[in-house]
């Protein structure tokens, strides 16, 4: 064979190989990306939730019970919190159909619903009578979180809010009573500090990403503070705001070293091993669950401290929603409904590592965990974060300034002023006012 013929033959073979390879890759991409399995499409749903803890355990453990009760199979898609939020936001933006049920954090609900990403539940997918009964059995603040203009676009499912845990032995040793107000709290935190006994006062997570801001808000709201006025202009730079930020800055002085940049893991461990004494802003009961044998019997809970106006623990909770792009909306709605029935909330959620959202379920399970009575009381009076799409930006802006103040890099008054200015820019840019 001549050289020219050889190279021509080789070139053709190479081109054919490239074309064939491209065809295979393209077909695989189409198959994986565009097609959902046709097998039992309506009777299998993909459910995105957290994988562990109070927000994940019940779904991991009870999905099979749901399947047994309804015949609908469940693919549990589990991730960490940040990944879950990013995954669902990206899927909704792309109007993807990969997920049928999505566990949404409450402050995203209204944004998603108004953007058309969530299916309306009452009437079409879940009977009105059930939704009415459910709405009557949750605190008003909780009900309003999952509604837009009176219609339910999600159901609360796992209820949560900030809790106050403290070490009773430390307080007794220091000669202080468990505090009922924020002023009493500061006194107690200062009195309890004894570095020679490796004992400190206040513990919380002071890092950014929700924690720093919610630390501030619980005190701010307790003093009657409001985040926005009627025109949605920020109003945090006022007496209540200054009180709140100064209170936290003083409390941080009673924290273990490094407290100004404490993570949630540090917070939990500090209380669990007896290093810290008072945590009024905890989101998870892990410090009690993981406490060592000496510290565990010392830990107690009570309702959040009161300000001059009210008690104002921050309301949390993640609920279940049906994606408006789901090809299996009815089956997905069955999942949401099942987990929010009175029976499942009362008899299964707590028993499988979760926390209920229904008031009747709380009442029936108060004795199940030592922290439940206080948490149930907090849940009734908890305040919700604003459910606006700009909350992520606002949280980042405010928490940055709070972090500067916590670290002593900026005085609290200047930090508050800058935080308000930054939020003002965000709201203007978003078009709330000029």
């Amino acid at each position, binding site marked *: 064979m001549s050289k020219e013929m050889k190279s021509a033959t080789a070139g053709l073979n190479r*081109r054919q190989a*490239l*074309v064939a*390879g*491209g065809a295979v890759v393209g077909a695989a991409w189409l198959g994986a990306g565009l097609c959902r399995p046709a097998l039992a499409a309506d009777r299998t749903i993909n459910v995105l939730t957290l994988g562990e803890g109070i927000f994940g355990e019940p779904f991991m453990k009870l999905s099979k019970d749901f399947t047994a009760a309804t015949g609908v199979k469940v693919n549990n898609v589990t991730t960490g919190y*940040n990944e879950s939020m*990013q995954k669902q*936001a*990206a899927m*909704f*933006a792309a109007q993807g159909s990969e997920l049928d049920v999505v566990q949404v954090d409450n402050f*995203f609900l209204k*944004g*998603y619903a*108004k*953007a*058309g*990403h969530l299916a309306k539940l009452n009437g079409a997918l879940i009977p009105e009578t059930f939704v009415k009964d459910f709405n009557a059995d949750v605190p008003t603040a909780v009900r309003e979180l999952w509604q837009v203009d009176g219609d339910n676009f999600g159901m609360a499912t796992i209820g949560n809010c900030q809790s106050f845990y403290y070490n009773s032995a430390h307080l007794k040793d220091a000669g202080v009573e468990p505090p009922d107000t924020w002023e009493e709290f500061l006194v107690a935190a200062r009195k309890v500090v004894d570095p020679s006994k490796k004992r400190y006062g206040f513990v919380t997570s002071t*890092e*950014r*990403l929700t924690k720093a801001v919610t630390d501030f808000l619980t005190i701010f709201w307790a003093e009657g503070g409001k985040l926005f006025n009627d025109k949605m202009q920020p109003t945090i730079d006022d007496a209540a705001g200054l009180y709140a930020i100064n209170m936290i800055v003083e409390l941080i002085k009673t924290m*273990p*070293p*490094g*407290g*100004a*940049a*404490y*993570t949630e*893991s*540090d917070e939990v*461990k*500090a209380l669990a*091993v007896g*290093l810290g004494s008072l945590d009024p802003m905890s989101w998870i009961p892990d410090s009690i669950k993981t406490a060592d044998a000496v510290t565990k019997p010392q830990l107690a809970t009570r309702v959040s401290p009161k300000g001059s106006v009210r008690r104002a623990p921050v309301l949390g909770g993640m609920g279940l929603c049906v994606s408006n792009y789901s090809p299996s909306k009815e089956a997905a709605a069955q999942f949401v409904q099942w987990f929010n029935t009175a029976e499942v909330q009362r008899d299964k959620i707590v028993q499988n590592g979760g926390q209920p959202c229904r008031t009747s379920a709380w009442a029936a399970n108060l004795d199940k965990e030592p922290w439940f009575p206080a948490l149930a009381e907090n849940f009734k009076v908890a305040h919700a974060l604003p459910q606006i*799409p*700009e909350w*992520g*930006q606002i*949280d*980042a802006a405010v928490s*940055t300034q709070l*972090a*500067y103040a*916590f*670290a002593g*890099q900026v005085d609290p008054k200047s930090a508050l002023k800058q935080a308000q200015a930054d939020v003002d820019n965000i709201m203007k*840019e*978003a078009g709330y006012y000029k």
Partner: protein
Amino acid sequence: MAPAGLALLVVFVYPLVSSFGMSLENWNLISNIRRWAGASNYIAIVSNPALPEFLRVTATYTGLSVVFEGALGLGLAALVRSGLRGRLPGFAFMRVLIMTPLLVAPLLWAFYFRNFFSPQFGLFNIVLNKLGLPSVLWVNDSKLAVYSLVGADVWQWTPFMFSILLAGLMSLPEDIVEAARLDGAGGWTIFWLIEMPLLKSVVLVAILMRTIDSLRYLDLILIITQGGPATSTTILNFLAYRTAFQEFQMGRGAALAFVVFAMVLVAVVALLRTMRRTLQHA
């Protein structure tokens, strides 16, 4: 050409153009409202009073990481090379040992170091306390945090520099070195005045690759400090990530990503020019 061109289009050109288009919009991922913004995202970035701080942190993190990784990598490579050439026992194993941090996924190292750096419960402070030394607020002190992250980065990526530089050193012609030795040149003179100039292009490639990586790196910051305390460890790439995926501002995040891209491009062009000059002189 057509399949290669198509691949280039799909994998590189389209995402780049699409991202640039996104950077000219105000796009809130939660509300899914997308509005034309023109250059306002870029103007907002440039006029952000915190930008000099972000640039300083980025330069500190990248600069120190690359310098220490390069210096340590070179030192270890020279040591192992002399041991291997001298057929001394243990050096082959040492070469493997030095490479082991690369075997662990970067994300796992980030989780390990997060625990190691914990002020009360981390391994580093436990060891310090056992030695009678006071605890250090490794990542809880805003003045110290970025240097602690540099340390973690150096631990993780020195083996990468080591492997490239060792390959470079091992490939140097031995006859030139032998000639220099016969002329009476000592070890350090040979290394610095004869071998290093020959190794320059390899060193520059290694520095280029680590600089690009370091400018884009996220894992340690995402897992350990989240850019804090305050903004003391917020590099530009992390800011881009946070803006897009935690604040859900896709347009502003895309604009920040392009700023990082521009910085990487400048670094690449500068280093390539230096390499070309070096090779021309050689």
